[in-house]
């Protein structure tokens, strides 16, 4: 970027060759005989027909049963003989990305932890050890010891401690270095890891050090099970009760039933397309385009790509660990993760939730200055510079997808030394000031760009004013989704993918009973577990 020279160029220069690096590489590539051009290989990211030959492998006899036993039972080992497994971090991998704040603040899909690496302990083992979340524990293996914060993790195998790598770096950079508790940075798990046991070691002893360490999670901001037992039960039970409604699922048999409909019609639910139904007023209608989204839960695997893509596209600030502990993370799109069933062997369900762009959005009606209102195409628009920040909309959003700039998260850009980091902003998206509410916009800047383009004559645009072809606009999350779980488009076009998905029998509205008429609809997940692998006595995805 600054016209510096790369290592190969330097080496080549030392050898007296001042060919530019790319040409050097291209030359080497051509010499390698891989076929095609370097440019093509660079563009495609792979070289065709260079894969390894397919290996023929077969599962051993009775493999299913063995796997089941491991998952459900674990080793059940006593303290002193615990197993420690080393897991790469979903954020920093082995620590190499520790200096990337986007990644640091992207919550791990399962643990929802940001900014730190932790030791995962199953609920049973934690009870046996007398450890609870946020306790700093000392894990001893032989003469090696590691002080790391514990997180009680449903689904972790009994008797096994999952130590996540990647934290506790001292020379990673301004962001990645291990710092004070409130800044994060994690723990150096390599203290335990030797070449003798790269993936796991056994014979570990875990003891409480007596100190506590605040973990910043984006869900269960505190342990739901805190407080006296009734309090804990109420939260847990409620989640279990809500789950079948929030994250709808069915199994193969259920889906095969032609009468299956994920939208469990509320008795007072009315047909959105016709009539007033039970609304006490004539609702607004939309003549032109109607943007909408469909999220197929069956495809979502919780990889977080959408979350990071949204953050990059929409100039969503990274807020730091302390703010995350105060529930102030700014990500417009979050993936809710729930555990179902026995907490030692739960099923995990995830659900990406962003602004649902309700037609009857409860957030809009309470804004005193009209800073959030509906566009003629059905977008729930946020007018940043009209917002005075009453936060009423936030309180009134049943989906809790609105994000408030509690302090100036862009303050550091006042410092000239951070100038070059300004380049990370998307020029098409306003950077929000403190005191302003924000939320998912369906990437309105992309929609507007497409609309402008559609008005331009060919060949830049479609050549005439008219419909924007389905698929022309992709939201950032949609573009990043590897499984195409997210589909965006125009409902007024009956042939668009999103229209079809909205007509799918797996579709349902989140919290539809409120008559908010969300434009984002979910498609129920169809679980189809291998009956051989499903633990005995456990219904496969029934609700």
């Amino acid at each position, binding site marked *: 970027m600054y016209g510096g020279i790369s290592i190969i160029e330097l080496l080549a220069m030392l050898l007296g060759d001042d060919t530019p690096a790319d040409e050097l590489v291209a030359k080497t590539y051509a010499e390698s005989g891989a076929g095609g051009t370097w440019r093509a290989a660079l563009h495609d990211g792979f070289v065709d027909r260079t894969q390894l030959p397919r290996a023929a492998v077969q599962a051993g006899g009775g493999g299913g049963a063995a796997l089941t036993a491991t998952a459900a039972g674990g080793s059940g080992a006593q303290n002193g003989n615990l197993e420690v497994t080393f897991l790469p971090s979903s954020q920093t991998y082995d620590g190499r990305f520790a200096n990337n704040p986007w990644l640091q603040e992207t919550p791990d899909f399962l643990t929802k932890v940001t900014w730190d690496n932790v030791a995962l302990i199953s609920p049973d083992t934690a009870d046996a050890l007398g450890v609870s979340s946020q306790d700093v524990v000392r894990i001893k293996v032989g003469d090696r010891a590691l002080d790391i914060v514990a997180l009680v993790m449903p689904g972790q195998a009994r008797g096994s401690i999952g130590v996540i790598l990647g934290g506790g770096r001292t020379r990673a950079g301004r962001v990645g270095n291990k710092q004070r508790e409130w800044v994060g940075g994690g723990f150096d798990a390599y203290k335990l890891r030797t070449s003798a046991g790269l993936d796991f070691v056994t014979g570990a002893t875990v003891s409480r050090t007596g100190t506590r360490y605040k973990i910043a999670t984006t869900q269960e901001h505190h342990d739901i099970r805190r407080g006296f037992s009734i309090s804990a039960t109420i939260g847990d039970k409620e989640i279990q009760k809500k789950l079948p409604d929030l994250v709808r699922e069915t199994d193969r048999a259920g889906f095969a039933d032609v009468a299956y409909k994920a939208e469990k*019609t*509320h*008795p*007072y*639910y*009315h047909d959105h397309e016709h009539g*007033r*139904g*039970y*609304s*006490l*007023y004539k609702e607004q209608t939309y003549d032109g385009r109607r943007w909408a989204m469909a999220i197929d839960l069956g495809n979502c695997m919780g990889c977080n790509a959408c979350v990071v893509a949204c953050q990059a596209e929409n100039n969503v600030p990274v807020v730091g660990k302390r703010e995350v502990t105060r529930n102030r993370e700014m990500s417009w799109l979050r993936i809710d993760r729930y555990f179902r069933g026995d907490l030692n062997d739960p099923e995990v369900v995830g659900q990406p939730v962003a602004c649902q762009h309700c037609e*009857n959005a409860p957030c809009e*009606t309470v804004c005193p200055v009209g800073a959030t209102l509906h566009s003629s195409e059905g977008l729930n628009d946020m007018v940043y510079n009209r917002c005075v920040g009453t936060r009423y909309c936030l309180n009134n959003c049943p989906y809790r997808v609105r994000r408030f700039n509690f302090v100036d998260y862009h303050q550091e850009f006042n410092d000239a030394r951070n100038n070059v980091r300004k380049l990370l902003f998307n020029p098409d998206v306003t950077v929000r000031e403190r005191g302003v509410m924000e939320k998912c916009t369906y990437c309105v800047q992309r929609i507007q760009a497409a609309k402008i383009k559609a008005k331009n004559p060919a060949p830049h645009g479609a050549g005439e004013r008219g419909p924007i072809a389905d698929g022309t606009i992709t939201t950032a999350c949609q573009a990043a989704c590897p499984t195409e779980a997210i589909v965006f488009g125009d409902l007024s076009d009956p042939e668009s993918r999103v229209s079809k998905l909205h007509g799918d029998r797996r579709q349902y509205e989140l919290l539809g*009973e*409120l*008559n908010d008429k969300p434009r984002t609809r979910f498609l129920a997940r169809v679980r189809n577990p291998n009956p051989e692998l499903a633990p005995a006595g456990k219904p496969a995805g029934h609700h």
Partner: protein
Amino acid sequence: MSATKSIHPDEKYKADKMGGRLFKVGLAAGAALLIISVILGATKGDHWRRFLYAYVVGWSFVFSIALGSLFFIISHHLTRAKWGIVLRRLAEFMAGTLPFLFVLGLVFVLPVLFGNKHLYFWTHDGLHDPKHPLWHHMHHKFGWLDPAFFAGRYVLYMAVYIGLARYFAKKSAEMDTAPDAAAAAAIADRLRVVAGPATVAFGFVTLFSITDLFMTLSPTWYSTIYSVNYFAGAMLATYCTLALLARVIQQNGKLVHSVTVEHYHDIGKYMFGWTFFWIYTAFSQFMLQWYGNIPEETIFYSYRMFSDWQYVSLALLVGQWAFPYLCLLSRWTKRILPLLMFFAAWQLVFHWVDLYWNVMPNAQWTMETTAHGVFNMGPLAGDPAKHTIGFHFLDITVWLALVGLFLAAVGKAMKGNLIPVKDPKLGECLAFENY
């Protein structure tokens, strides 16, 4: 101010035969109308549904007046209010009808107990099937909305009301026969002390009894302010009835000097005040459910806003609130007795419309089970606009029959003095002046 007066020497304040006459007239009219209504109900051919609904409306009308009278008595003792002492006995007579109203109420409570499925929606058998669309909303409260438990609670609520009414009436009557002023003052003090806990009991029982008796007529709908709104209407009706009753008694030559225009003026003020409170609670309920727009709640209003009922709703808004409210603003409306009587009668009629409007639309909540075991919520489900008022002559006759019977019960209770002659504050009440 602290000026007092003694009872006018020419005053006739003994009930004498007036109670008996009222009893006869009321009973005759009530019985006759009731017979007509029963005949109409029997020929209506809807399993007495309309009759029962009309009966509940009529009963809730007279019950609200008795209830309001009871609160009038208790609150007057509690606050040591002076102006209404001359009216207290009349209120006691009206509250004294509660035992009789208890019996009248059994007309719709007993059928429910013995398996009538046409009045209360929750008695419908189909609801107990988990496949029923409303099962999710209802199944947890089948224990509460159990006919036997319901009847038991009815007895309990009425027992509390009757107990309170009898206690206050008895003590008040004792005051008349008190040997001296000190003894009467002691009774008055005693009543004031009891009035505190009595108000508490009254308040809590009313919060639940109204919810139980009338709100559960709407299938799944709920509103926390419902009983407060009913109570507001009840108080309004009570003051109107007090005004009319006092006037009728005066025209029979009694209490001519005791009840003055000042007292009527105060009744008028309270009518005005309760009209305001009624619209306040009604608006709170409506606006909040309109604003929230959650189908579970808006269903109540959607049936009353988008069908023929909308005209009743509008009539209620104008008749129960806007028109009398504006007119009662003026001091003169309250002091010119014919005008005041007109508004008292007007408000009473609209009080009935209010109750009718609250209860009657539920009558079309029919539940049907098709042959295929698929439940639907009746022919009108999902289309509020198809709702009709379904007015039947029965609606009026049952109401008037119950009013007649209520008046008969008032006549029965009307014994002894028409004013508490030995009440320590009576003098101040007689001298009462609005300033």
